[in-house]
């Protein structure tokens, strides 16, 4: 990608692609840019620093006035303590189970429907596609009451089903995969058909392996939003053992106000999967983020 081509030229003038190109950025301007970036980074990253460093500070450090920003001693007591304050292990499992199931289900549903939209003759195609896009426009909060009542009426509160069912399919994945499938070279498809490949073989052996970046975008996106959900799990679970990690953080916040180190240890652990995805999956994330912006 352009990432590679941009990183290579390292002439002092900071040429973009061709080092010989005259460049306006004067040393003073460059210095200003670095200073501005570093200042902004300090402000923006402070909460991240505070999360991690605060989680290993003892109560004498973090709850002191004035608060110390550098730990005088390292302690992992907060990480032990947080397991006693909330059923963190169980909640980690709940969050993982729910988010992974939702991700797998949404990717499968999106692959099937996007395939149908792009490669199959379909009656009322435009109407069905409009219906899928409509799902992206209805704010979930506006229909949360009947969904909550559905779960209550079917005795599904405090179950995994309640946490997962409404999100097993979504319009976003279909939208993104449809765009990706449409750019699939039709010659490859025709060649596969001539070779006698049916829909299943074409989909599984040719189309999906070649669509891995788009699939990764959908999966990362769906996982992040499933892992980070708050309003819905708050409504349908009240037993701590069935709550997700996010609701666990909320209970920690309510119960341990005087003990921020404990809360920050919980936050640090909840951040592990999402921080990894943001750091390592950025390329795929950007593709998903901008799917709607490029029309």
């Amino acid at each position, binding site marked *: 990608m352009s990432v590679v081509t*941009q*990183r290579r030229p390292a002439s002092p003038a*900071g040429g*973009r*692609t061709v080092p010989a*190109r*005259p460049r*306006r950025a004067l040393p003073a301007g460059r210095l200003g840019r670095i200073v501005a*970036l570093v200042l*902004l*980074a300090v402000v*923006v990253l402070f*909460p991240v620093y*505070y*999360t991690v460093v605060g989680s290993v500070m003892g109560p004498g450090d*973090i*709850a*002191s*006035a004035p608060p110390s920003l550098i730990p005088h001693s390292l302690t992992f007591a907060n990480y032990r303590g947080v397991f006693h304050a909330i059923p963190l292990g169980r909640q980690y499992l709940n969050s993982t189970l729910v988010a992974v199931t939702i991700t797998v289900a949404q990717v499968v549903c*999106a692959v*099937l*429907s996007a395939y*149908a939209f792009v490669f*199959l*003759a379909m*009656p009322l195609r435009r109407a069905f596609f409009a*219906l*899928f896009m409509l799902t992206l*426009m*209805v*704010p979930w*909060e*506006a229909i949360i*009451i*009947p969904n*909550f009542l*559905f779960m209550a009426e079917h005795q599904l509160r405090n179950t995994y089903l309640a946490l997962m069912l*409404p999100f097993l*399919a979504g319009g976003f994945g*279909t939208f993104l995969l449809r765009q990706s499938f449409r750019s699939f070279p039709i010659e490859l498809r025709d060649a596969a058909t001539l070779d006698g490949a049916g829909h299943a073989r074409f989909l599984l052996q040719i189309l999906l392996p070649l669509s891995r970046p788009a699939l990764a975008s959908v999966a990362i996106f769906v996982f992040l939003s499933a892992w980070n959900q*708050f*309003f819905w799990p*708050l409504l349908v679970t009240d037993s701590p053992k069935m709550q997700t990690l*996010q609701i666990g*953080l*909320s209970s920690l*916040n309510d119960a341990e*106000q005087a003990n*921020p180190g404990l*809360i920050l240890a919980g*936050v640090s652990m*909840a*951040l592990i999967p999402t921080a990894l995805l*943001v*750091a390592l999956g950025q390329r795929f*994330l950007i593709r998903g983020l*901008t799917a*709607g*912006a490029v*029309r």
Partner: protein
Amino acid sequence: MATTASTRPGVGRERVLSLVLLLPSLAVFVLFLFWPLVRTFQLSTTGQDLFGRANRSVGLANFKAVLHDPEFGQVLGVTAGYVLLTVLPSILLALLVALLLQNPLRGLRVLRSAFAMPFAYSVAAASVVFAALFNPAIGIANYLVTSLGFAPVNWLTQPGTALISIAITTIWMTLGYNMLVLLAGIGGVDDQLYEAARLDGAGTWRIAWSITIPMITPTLFFLVVVDTIQALQSFGQIHLLTRGGPTGHTTTLVYWIYHTAFANGASDYGTGSAQAIVLLAVVIAVTAIQFGVLERKVFYR
């Protein structure tokens, strides 16, 4: 088109197959989206009997109650204020970062990932961290304020600062997302435009103002729409930081729905559904206005 397609062999089977493939998604959408949407309208016209069962039609009485509720004006004001305090500041800040980060300087590329980090925070994680930062006794916010010689502030419990504190939390949370989208937009600008501008002797800021920003107006427009809709749907940061208080000063439309239908054992689903329809109408109206007004100022390639 339909006639030529149906002459192809196996098209009938293909049509059946296509619908079968849509079925899993459609089942979820009907059960948890379209039917609830219909039911929200139904519920909004029902009242509850003495036992709290929603079983009596009251026509538009719930809507009248919502519109005449003395809280309604405040709720709309808070919602609008929250959108204004979060959407533009976050986009402008992200734009500044993105402009500074384009053509990354050597060794500073890692900053791009660093600035994206807030995106990893869930609403609960970010709110809980900011709750600690805004803590009046041991938080960093008051440490800064007092070291500048001012009196400590009760950030989350004073009417004047509560909404601003929530807005700061939200700005921080959305910064990573906005910056990533803007960087992708900036990366799509044709290099030849920059080259031409440099040959004309334009400086860095002149290029940003006259080329980069006009060329990424579609991206900026996209962010304004998406962020506004997001802001209208915010719940977690309000619930975790202020519970809508003090005295409704941070109760937005969504939090109002929660308050009416769920909070503290409340179960007024009829009124809550009427409020939900107001939310739906506001989201649709704002989106339509943005498309109507902003789209005309957007430069499309």
